[in-house]
C-alpha cells in the first residue's frame, strides 16, 4: 500500500486531519529560522540540506493537544545540542555545561518552535512544557512533516509528528502502533 492510498482512505473514513494538510516544510523552515535568530544569535543561518544525524542524538519536544495532536520534535547530535545550549546562554554559559543546562536550553528551543507551529494550526490547542530525551516514536508515517537543516555544518531535524497511530482501516506497515512503548516512557528523567 502506498502512502497516497493510506491518506486517501483515511480521509474517506475520518475527519481527523494529518499534519501535512495543516503545515508545509517552508513554514516550518521559516519558523525555525526566526527561532534561531532570536535564541541562538541574530546572525545564525539554517541551511535546508539533509545530512545524516550522528549515532548519539538528543531530542527536545513539546506536545500540542487540540484539533491536531502530536509533538514538535527537534533532534540533533548530543554535542550539537550542547553547542546550541551554549549559544543560547551566551555570556552566562558556565565553563562546563551540566545536563540540566542542556535540558533547559535545548528544551526552550523546542518550546519556542512548538509555540509558533501551534499558532499556525486551526482552532485552539494547548502546549505542554518541553521534554528532552530520546525522540517520541513516529506513530503514523503519513502524519509527519519533517525538515532537515544544517546549523554550523551540523544536522538538525525538526519533525512535526502526530501522536496517534494510523486508524485501523489504514494500517501503516512501517510503523506499527506499539502499545508497550508510549511517548513518555522514552523521556529521560530530568
Amino acid at each position: 500500500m502506498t502512502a497516497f492510498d493510506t491518506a486517501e482512505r483515511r480521509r474517506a473514513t475520518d475527519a481527523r486531519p494529518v499534519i501535512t494538510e495543516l503545515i508545509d516544510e517552508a513554514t516550518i523552515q521559516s519558523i525555525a529560522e526566526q527561532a534561531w535568530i532570536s535564541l541562538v544569535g541574530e546572525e545564525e543561518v539554517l541551511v535546508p540540506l539533509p545530512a545524516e544525524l550522528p549515532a548519539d542524538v538528543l531530542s527536545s519536544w513539546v506536545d500540542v493537544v487540540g484539533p491536531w495532536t502530536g509533538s514538535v520534535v527537534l533532534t540533533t547530535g548530543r554535542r550539537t545540542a550542547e553547542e546550541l545550549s551554549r549559544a543560547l546562554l551566551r555570556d552566562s554559559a558556565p565553563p562546563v555545561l551540566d545536563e540540566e543546562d542542556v535540558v533547559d536550553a535545548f528544551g526552550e528551543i523546542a518550546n519556542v518552535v512548538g509555540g509558533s507551529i501551534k499558532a499556525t494550526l486551526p482552532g485552539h490547542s494547548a502546549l505542554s512544557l518541553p521534554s528532552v530525551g530520546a525522540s517520541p516514536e513516529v506513530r503514523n508515517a503519513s502524519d509527519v512533516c519533517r525538515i532537515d537543516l544544517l546549523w554550523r555544518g551540523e544536522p538538525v531535524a525538526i519533525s512535526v509528528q502526530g501522536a496517534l497511530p494510523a486508524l485501523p482501516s489504514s494500517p501503516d506497515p512501517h510503523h506499527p502502533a506499539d502499545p508497550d512503548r508510549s511517548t513518555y516512557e522514552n523521556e529521560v528523567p530530568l
Partner: protein
Amino acid sequence: MRALVIDDSRAMRRIVSSILTGFGYEVRDAGHGGEALEVLNEGWVPDLATIDWNMPVMDGLQFVSAVRANPAWRSMTMMMVTSESEHTQIVRALAAGAHEYVIKPFTADAIRDKLALLGLLPQEVVL
C-alpha cells in the same frame, strides 16, 4: 529601575535578564508565578515584570490575575514574554491585565522597542 523576570527556563531567564541588565535594570528572577509572588510579598516590587505563560505551579496568566487583585502592586508594568502566539491568547492576556506582549521568538531590539513604548527605557539607548 527594577525588573522581575519570570520564566521556567533558566536559559530564557538569563537571556531576558541580560537584555534588561544592559538597559540598566536591577534584575531578579523567578521560575514560576508562585516564586514571583513570594518576591513581591517580600516587598521587592519591580517597575517591570516579564512573564512567561506556560510554567509549572502557577502559570503566567494566573500570576497576572493575582497581581491585578492586589492594589499595592498596581504600579508594576506586566509584559508577557511567551511562545503563546495565537491572536486569542494575546487578547486573553491583555484582558487579564497584562500591559504588553512579546512573542517568542524575539530579539533584544524587540524588548527595547516595547520598553520604549511603555516609557520604561531608563537609559537613552542609541539605535
